[in-house]
């Protein structure tokens, strides 16, 4: 199935990719776009349907006010203009998952348009221009029966569940994205990841990609290096994980490069991404494209958000992810790399809370990105899901700062907290982990170590101070690590001066 592909570096040496991304976001309203049926994932088939979302003869849509508000908030967050007057339109085409055989969507009058977002990818900033964010309804869900693959091809018949029909969607469409070079797939992934974070912070969608509540269609075309005229593009449908956005685009770039390098032509067509095999296959070509016969939806009246309403909604916007990151970086004094690591690890929230509980930003960063990241990884959970709170992490650091425990002991304290042994203080007490700070006990241990290692002691007396490590190690071992290594060193050197 896999087509010929050119090596990625070779492809990028010859061609510049131009991207276009269409992202569908399912809104998490309580009810559907045009009716009162529950907008919920996973119900028994056809139990969340009514005359309206079934498109029964005679039924009529009424717009969900919250869906409009969510769309406006998304538009504002994407720096878009909000239309002061816009309409829904009918997109006419026949398909069994469409109860009316037209989709109620927006066409030439989207609710939000002309926006932008800046993305940081490996220290380089890319501006993504947003052409539009418009509202529409989702279709029902098909199950294909018969045939070997469960796919549409070869199936004997299909079954339709209309629970999803009428779910409110916002479709966000970029302008052509140029100048990304070899980073094109990464930029696309970063953009989708940005949108996911944004929707979460706006609270307008659950953005569960595995449930299809955020779906991406990725367009790409290639033009010879230095050219300005875009090539013919393909549109890869339903690329539904962050990883596959990157993979699918990488594949398409390599495939198109092979076609063009071989003197062939790229067909303007839709293509399907095969997650398992990591390749795309052709779908409908432009020549077969439907004539959608858009016209203004006569069952609905125009939407004309007042300026006051829009400004009131603007006031409800949370701090947007990029703004927040800039603020936190300033407050914490992180380097770009440190911040990026924290973002990638999804650790911003926990670090912020740990700092709020009294730890220094560097200490918080250290615990969450090393010891705790390792444990989360082992357990296969998110940082926030670990059985230790940011307050407890701050308490652990406070114990270190007070000299009650050293770093090694602190890790044991964390282990105890995660094991359910109580607060850090409880674990210290319960496991007897406090460092030995009694000079009498330390002196005895140092004397014992000197007596047991006369050669080493002699070398130190002769000025070879680096040999002190061996004695310190012996002391620490004797005290099962519960000593302050710096204090032990002082005592050793004082004895042998």
């Amino acid at each position, binding site marked *: 199935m896999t087509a010929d592909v050119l090596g990625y570096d070779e492809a990028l040496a010859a061609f510049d990719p131009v991207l276009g991304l269409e992202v569908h976001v399912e809104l998490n309203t309580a009810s559907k776009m045009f009716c009162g*049926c*529950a907008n919920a994932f996973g119900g028994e*088939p*056809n139990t969340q349907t009514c005359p309206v979302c079934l498109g029964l003869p005679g039924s009529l849509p009424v717009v969900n*006010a919250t869906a409009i508000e969510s769309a406006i908030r998304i538009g504002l967050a994407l720096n878009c203009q909000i239309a002061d007057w816009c309409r829904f339109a009918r997109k006419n085409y*026949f398909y069994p998952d469409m109860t009316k055989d037209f989709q109620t969507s927006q066409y030439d009058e989207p609710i939000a348009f002309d926006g932008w977002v800046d993305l940081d990818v490996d220290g380089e900033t890319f501006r993504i221009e947003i052409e539009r964010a418009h509202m529409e309804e989702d279709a029902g869900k*098909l199950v294909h029966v018969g045939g070997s693959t469960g796919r549409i091809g070869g199936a004997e018949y*299909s079954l339709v569940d209309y629970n999803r029909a009428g779910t409110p969607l916002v479709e966000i469409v970029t302008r052509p994205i140029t100048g990304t070079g070899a980073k094109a797939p990464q930029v696309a992934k970063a953009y989708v990841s940005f949108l996911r974070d944004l929707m979460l912070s706006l609270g307008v969608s659950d953005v569960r990609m595995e449930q299809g509540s955020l779906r991406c269609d990725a367009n790409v075309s290639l033009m010879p290096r230095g050219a300005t005229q875009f090539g013919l593009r393909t549109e890869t449908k339903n690329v539904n994980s962050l990883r596959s956005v990157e993979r699918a685009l990488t594949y398409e770039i390599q495939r198109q490069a092979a076609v063009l390098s071989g003197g062939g032509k790229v067909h303007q067509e839709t293509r399907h991404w095969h997650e398992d095999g990591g390749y795309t296959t052709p779908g409908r070509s432009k020549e077969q494209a439907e004539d959608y016969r858009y016209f203004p939806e*006569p069952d609905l009246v125009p939407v004309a958000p007042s300026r006051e309403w829009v400004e009131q909604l603007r006031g409800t916007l949370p701090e947007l992810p990029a703004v927040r990151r800039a603020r936190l970086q300033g407050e914490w004094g992180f380097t770009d790399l440190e911040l990026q690591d924290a973002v990638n690890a999804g650790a911003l929230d926990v670090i912020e809370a740990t700092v709020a509980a009294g730890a220094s930003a560097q200490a918080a960063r250290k615990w969450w990105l090393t010891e705790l990241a390792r444990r989360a990884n082992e357990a296969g959970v998110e940082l926030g899901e670990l059985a230790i709170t940011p307050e407890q992490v701050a308490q652990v650091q406070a114990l270190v700062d007070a000299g009650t425990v050293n770093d090694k002991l602190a890790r044991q304290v964390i282990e105890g907290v995660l094991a359910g042994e109580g607060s850090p203080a409880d674990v210290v007490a319960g496991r007897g982990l406090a460092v030995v700070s009694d000079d009498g006990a330390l002196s005895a241990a140092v004397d014992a170590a000197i007596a047991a290692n006369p050669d080493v002691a002699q070398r130190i007396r002769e000025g070879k101070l680096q040999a002190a490590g061996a004695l310190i190690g012996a002391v620490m071992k004797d005290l099962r690590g519960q000593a302050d290594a710096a204090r032990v060193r002082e005592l050793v050197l004082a004895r042998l001066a």
Partner: protein
Amino acid sequence: MALTAADVARLGELARIRLTDDELAHLAPQLDVILESVASVAAVAAADVPPTSHALPLTNVFRADVVTPSLRAEDVLAAAPAVEDGRFRVPRILAEES
């Protein structure tokens, strides 16, 4: 411009209506006459005339985001030509997904 039987057949495909040859032969000239008679609208539709899609200038008609009861699944499926597993059974889809 005269509509040919082939034009009408193409429109039939777009509208998902299988037309017989007789129907095509009959419809094409009828549609021509109708289209000719309605073409007069273009003559008076000056650029400065705004279109009217609705008689009354209503805007912002919304419903509150409140869940109301759905139909019972058996009522939903009662009229279906074919049902399986609580779903509508439909013939196989030869064209690809859109």
